[in-house]
């Protein structure tokens, strides 16, 4: 038995590529499933949420403007980094969700594989949901998907890592940027994910991670006029979910309602397409060969 004193970690938010404490100076106690103290996590304020939106907006154009190929490379890089820090996440997930090490390892593997899956979507989604339309007239007519913009994600409460990855990756794979509210009781895997994202060539501001009380932070994000969409995955209170959806109507945010999800199952493309707009461009084609002659 070593008598070495272990080094605790100070968990911080991840906003705009930096690791700030909450501007409010508040923290809250995070415990494991047996109520043993694990760490003090930042208790984010509404101001932290607004700062995160500013960072996400600033990053959005540049992220969407990168080639789909490069976005795929960067997402894959995140998976590489996760693989290297697997032990840490297995420990954090085991503590957060009360799982055995071996069960937590299965969950973390699944999360890394899911990240890889979404990495492969970046340069394919346009071919699946876009394309040329055979209009009845001499026009070139093309529909392409584009990111909706800044997306607020309320991460699942129980699935602190696989669920988290399953809601973040589809949002950013398509060029959106995200403001994520981590699982309220189990925010540590999310805050550690921020450290991974920061070292994965992902531009600062593309993903911003807040920890704290969902009921305190989510309403201001649902009402925020510069947020374009909201994923309510982790809102377990029906009354709050309805309030958030009502607030989101103010600027017609795209809303993904909370619903039961088996995070270990094939996610399909629903979350990928939920945060896309379809742009259709028309242009006359002229008629070089109008008389039927070759040209």
């Amino acid at each position, binding site marked *: 038995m070593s008598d070495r004193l272990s080094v605790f970690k100070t968990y911080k938010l991840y906003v705009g590529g930096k690791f700030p404490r909450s501007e409010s100076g508040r923290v809250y106690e995070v415990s494991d499933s047996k109520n043993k103290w694990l760490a003090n996590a930042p208790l984010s304020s509404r101001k932290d949420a607004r700062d995160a939106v500013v960072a996400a907006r600033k990053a959005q154009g540049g992220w969407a403007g990168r080639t789909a190929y490069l976005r795929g490379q960067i997402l894959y890089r995140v998976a590489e980094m996760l693989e290297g820090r697997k032990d840490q996440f297995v420990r954090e997930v085991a503590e957060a969700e009360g799982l055995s090490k071996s069960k937590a390892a299965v969950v973390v593997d699944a999360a890394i594989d899911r990240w890889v899956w979404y990495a492969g979507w970046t340069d394919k989604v346009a071919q*699946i*949901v876009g394309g040329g*339309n*055979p*209009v*009845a*007239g001499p*026009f070139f*007519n093309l*529909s392409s998907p584009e990111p*909706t913009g800044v997306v607020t994600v309320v991460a699942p409460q129980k699935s602190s890592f696989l669920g988290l990855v399953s809601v973040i990756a589809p949002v950013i794979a398509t060029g959106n940027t995200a403001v994520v509210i981590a699982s309220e009781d189990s925010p540590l895997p999310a805050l550690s994910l921020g450290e991974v994202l920061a070292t994965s060539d992902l531009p600062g501001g593309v993903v911003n991670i807040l920890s704290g009380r969902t009921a305190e932070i989510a309403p201001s994000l649902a009402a925020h006029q510069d947020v*374009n969409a909201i994923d309510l995955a982790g809102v377990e209170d*029906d009354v709050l*979910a*309805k309030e958030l*959806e*009502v607030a*989101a*109507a*103010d*600027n*017609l945010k*795209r809303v993904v*309602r909370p619903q039961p999800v088996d995070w270990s199952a094939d996610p*399909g493309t*629903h979350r990928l397409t939920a945060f896309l*707009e*379809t*742009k*259709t*461009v*028309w*242009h*006359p084609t002229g008629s070089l060969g109008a008389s039927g002659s070759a040209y």
Partner: protein
Amino acid sequence: MTSPFEYAPAPESRSVVDIAPSYGLFIDGEFTEAADGKVFKTVSPSSEEVLSEVAQASSEDVDRAVKAARKAFEKWSVLPGAERAKYLFRIARIIQERSRELAVLETLDNGKPIKETRDADLPLVAAHFFYYAGWADKLDHAGYGANPRPLGVAGQVIPWNFPLLMLAWKIAPALATGNTVVLKPAETTPLSALFFADICRQAGLPKGVVNILPGYGDAGAALTAHPDVNKVAFTGSTAVGKAIARQVAGTDKKVTLELGGKGANIVFDDAPIDQAVEGIVTGIFFNQGQVCCAGSRLLVQESVQDEVLDALKRRLSTLRLGDPLDKNTDIGAINSAEQLARITALAETGEAEGAERWSAPCELPSSGYWFAPTLFTNVTQAHTVARDEIFGPVLSVLTFRTPEEAVAKANNTQYGLSAGIWTEKGSRILAVADRLRAGVIWANTFNKFDPTSPFGGYKESGYGREGGRHGLEAYLDV
């Protein structure tokens, strides 16, 4: 001085359409009175003549219609897709056969020129039913996985600007995917939807699959709020769209909203000016500007501003305003007294805020609701006429110097429905189109529609797409 462009009157005959003095609600395959016996009158906007008296749906009628649709859903949803397809093909064919009658009817009830109902609305209406008919037995191949399921009863609320076309946009995909519908047409334009009910009868469509409830906003609200409606589809104002989004919060209802717009039509200095001028005219004066995707903000590059405006004014002076049934008429009547008042008030605000008003020199008929094609110059982005949707024949002209400025100004709006780009330079078209936040972008053309082509907006212009393969998603459980 008489213009060399005077045309002899060429009125389309009204005799092809037989409008009854009164109509009921269409519920479960039957025309029926409203539960509370209420009726309202529908008038011709060009003459203020009362065309017919129509039953006015209340929440009780909505309930009755939803029940009928629910019952019909049991059989309709399990009908083989190939059989549903054949019903839709039948409807498409009957629309083609009766298109002259429907065009005249629509022109009478809406006030839009026969040229547009005959050459734009009706061909598109038939085309939508043809297009979605073909999807009914191919849904497994639509990209939403094997065996996609219908949602159930669709509650649909449509506006008065394209009464029959909006009906087609809503009903064709709903039926193709196995849903049943309750549709509320606008209070000023209920007739073509009621004629469509007769087409459903001629096609032998099972009772209750399509229900039509003429009525006001309260009936629409009762329909979208009805607990047994699974899908809400709305086309109309952004304000009502937001109210619906709030109303359905916390429910399982799937919603699509096609809302307002303030489309930018961007003319670069190398644009083919004559074509651009035609495009500007089409963009804002088609259907008297009562189009959500109208190009109501002209953004013209400063160096060609005078040339474009001179050509535009010259062109507008040749537009013929008057009897919508005259085949030479370009500009018909505004749909209602209420809408005319709204357009008039917004135009007055434009003047009061210091924008310079110019209206085409044309004589307005003494009865009916009319507004001369109008444009505002010296407009800034802060002006009401540059920000608010006017939904009338009013064009606001702004200028820009660089493509960056054009994009910034075009995107400076709560809306994101449509935009136009006029330039001979292909790379500029693609670069600008890429940066515009709008769902439909017309380059060197404007206001083109097709059933195979998805339509819908970004931002506060609503969510979801209508038309094309994308349009199926709104009616499937995916």
